[in-house]
């Protein structure tokens, strides 16, 4: 019995317990309303089902949350421009592939050129954010607020206020599936990004540096780490992730819809990071936690959609979840609870 308690305590004590627990909870709660939730069938040679939909749709968010984790860990701030950067990347890609036309049935420029340009645009946005945060020492959220507002405007200018359509089968592959492979492509993209980042962080000292800078940027500078460069790089990396995510999102709808690509995803990405057990104050981080967090958020969204909540209304529930998680992380709350507890005990003693 005692062993069991120790085991349970050990289990609940691990970092990934809370995110995994939330994920399982959200997934299981679906079973009540839709018993077929975990059923997977094959339709047109592609896996099909609720659970596949969750994994597929979460890919954009997983990619974003990887970048967001770096930013949060290194700078203790968040990048709220990611959604807008996604729309910029999508717009740049479609603009180049369509050669400035509004609807095309074949690529006007090589596919790879569009992809590279989109990723480059994302990195450029990241450079801008990183410059403001790392070199100019501006609060991350104010710095990224600039692109948060102006980004969609820029995307609108690129697409001239219209939706650019790329009606080419090979363009849709990135967001849908490659013929012959039953798993949707975005899943692979997300997996690739996560694995590459993981290897990069584990095989180089970068991961360690990011945590050091996040815990105390002054001290790490005195130790000889170029803090501002690490922070700058984390923003560039976040921009890159947003660019890739924007490509996938734009490929899903084979168009550049500046108003809707990545809409409200910034909150989801921050939520994923927080839900993954990472402190929004920076420092130690768990990449895997954020990834699990991202799948949880998507599962939550899908659940809410299934319950008939409209996309406009979903932010309400997510905002509540965010506040609860962050409040639970707050040390002040723990202090308050402790004070309350000791107060009660003191009261008992007096009685």
């Amino acid at each position: 019995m005692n062993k069991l308690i120790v085991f349970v305590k050990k289990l609940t004590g691990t970092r990934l317990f809370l995110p995994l627990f939330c994920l399982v909870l959200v997934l299981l709660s679906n079973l009540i309303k839709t018993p077929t939730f975990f059923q997977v069938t094959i339709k047109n040679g592609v896996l099909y089902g609720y659970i596949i939909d969750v994994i597929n749709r979460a890919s954009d968010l997983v990619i974003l949350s990887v970048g967001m984790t770096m930013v949060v860990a290194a700078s203790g701030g968040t990048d709220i421009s990611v959604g807008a950067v996604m729309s910029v990347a999508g717009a740049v890609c479609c603009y180049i592939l369509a050669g400035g036309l509004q609807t095309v049935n074949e690529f006007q420029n090589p596919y790879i050129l569009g992809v590279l340009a989109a990723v480059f645009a994302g990195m450029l946005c990241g450079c801008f954010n990183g410059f403001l945060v790392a070199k100019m020492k501006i609060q991350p959220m104010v710095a990224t607020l600039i692109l948060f507002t102006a980004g969609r405007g820029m995307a609108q200018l690129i697409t001239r206020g219209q939706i650019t359509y790329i009606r080419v089968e090979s363009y849709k592959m990135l967001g849908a599936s490659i013929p012959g492979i039953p798993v949707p492509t975005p899943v692979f993209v997300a997996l690739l990004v996560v694995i590459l980042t993981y290897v990069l962080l584990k095989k180089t000292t970068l991961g360690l540096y990011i945590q050091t800078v996040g815990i105390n940027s002054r001290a790490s500078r005195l130790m000889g780490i170029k803090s501002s460069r690490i922070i700058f790089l984390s923003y560039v990396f976040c921009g890159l992730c947003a660019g890739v995510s924007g490509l996938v999102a734009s490929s899903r709808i084979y168009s550049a819809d500046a108003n809707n690509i990545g809409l409200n995803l910034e909150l989801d990405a921050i939520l994923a990071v927080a839900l993954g057990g990472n402190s929004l104050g920076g420092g130690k981080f768990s990449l895997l936690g954020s990834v699990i967090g991202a799948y949880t958020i998507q599962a939550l969204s899908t659940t809410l959609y299934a319950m008939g909540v409209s996309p406009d209304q979903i932010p309400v529930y997510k905002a509540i979840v965010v506040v609860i998680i962050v409040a639970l992380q707050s040390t002040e709350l723990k202090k308050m609870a402790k004070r309350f507890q000791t107060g009660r005990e003191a009261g008992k003693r007096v009685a």
Partner: protein
Amino acid sequence: MKNRGKTDGKIFLLMITIALFVTMYIAGIIIFNSKGFAKPQVFLNLFISNAGLIVIAAGMTMVMITGGIDISVGSVVALACMMLAWMMEVKGIGAVPALLTVLVMGIFFGLAQGFFIAYLKIQPFIVTLAGMFFARGMTAIISQEMISVKNELFLKWAKSKINLTFLGGTVNKKGVVNYPFLYPSVIIALVVLVLVFVALKYTKFGRTIYAVGGNEQSALMMGLNVKRTKLLVYVINGFLCALGGFLFCLNTCAGFVEQAKGFEMEAIASAVIGGTLLSGGVGNVFGSLFGVLIKGTIETFITFQGTLSSWWTKITIAALLAFFILLQSLFAKAKEK
């Protein structure tokens, strides 16, 4: 001596802002003279179309002086407009009770955000980001359709012109004399602005706000109640957001989900352009007023120009914000040396 230099720096930033506004306006008069840019009404329209923003920028300035920030303001404006429209049109509640309800909503919204920020010490950004999505989502929950306001009393508030006869009128083709005019919303906005100015400058509470923003630790050591001050600032800001939403609604006479998107950016930009430091401790609501006027002038430019898309307003504001942030950062660096 050191203190003197700091004051000069503050005034210098404000002077740049005022000079920028005057230059832009004169440039506008020169470029668009044929289209009537020089008319007094064009200037007054800056106030009419931005009455809500003036109030919200005043609240934002207070919050930023404490070293915090509020990015939920745009969504709260949308929520306020939607609540007003929904209560008056769908529920048939009178204009006065509807307005009071909205103001109380603003106070409670500010109270909730202030509690999380001041007492649980969560980053203001995270709290107000959640607040931003919460308020926008609530707007969608109330109604996803646009609701136009047709309440008579409300429209009377919105459309009663105050003629400024001393500015001289122009006679139109039908022989009717047209005077330059203002709406009551402008008067409310300016009164709020003056009240906030007085509160910041001449009351104990106002001085405490500056002290908290300047250095929270020393303020605490001086025996000031930092937490309560912060909470109060967010409560006042919530109230001003709701009031600003009401003034905004007087202009649009409608409530819809996408309303006032990007408003938070405009309010923050106005405050920053007006010389409020992002690091807290320094700020002036009259500077923010000029920030709002600059934004209004850019909008007027784009309207007069005629062919540019409205997206340019947002991009220009963002660019201006970036520019002024850089300027502040350079000043801070110069001061360190």
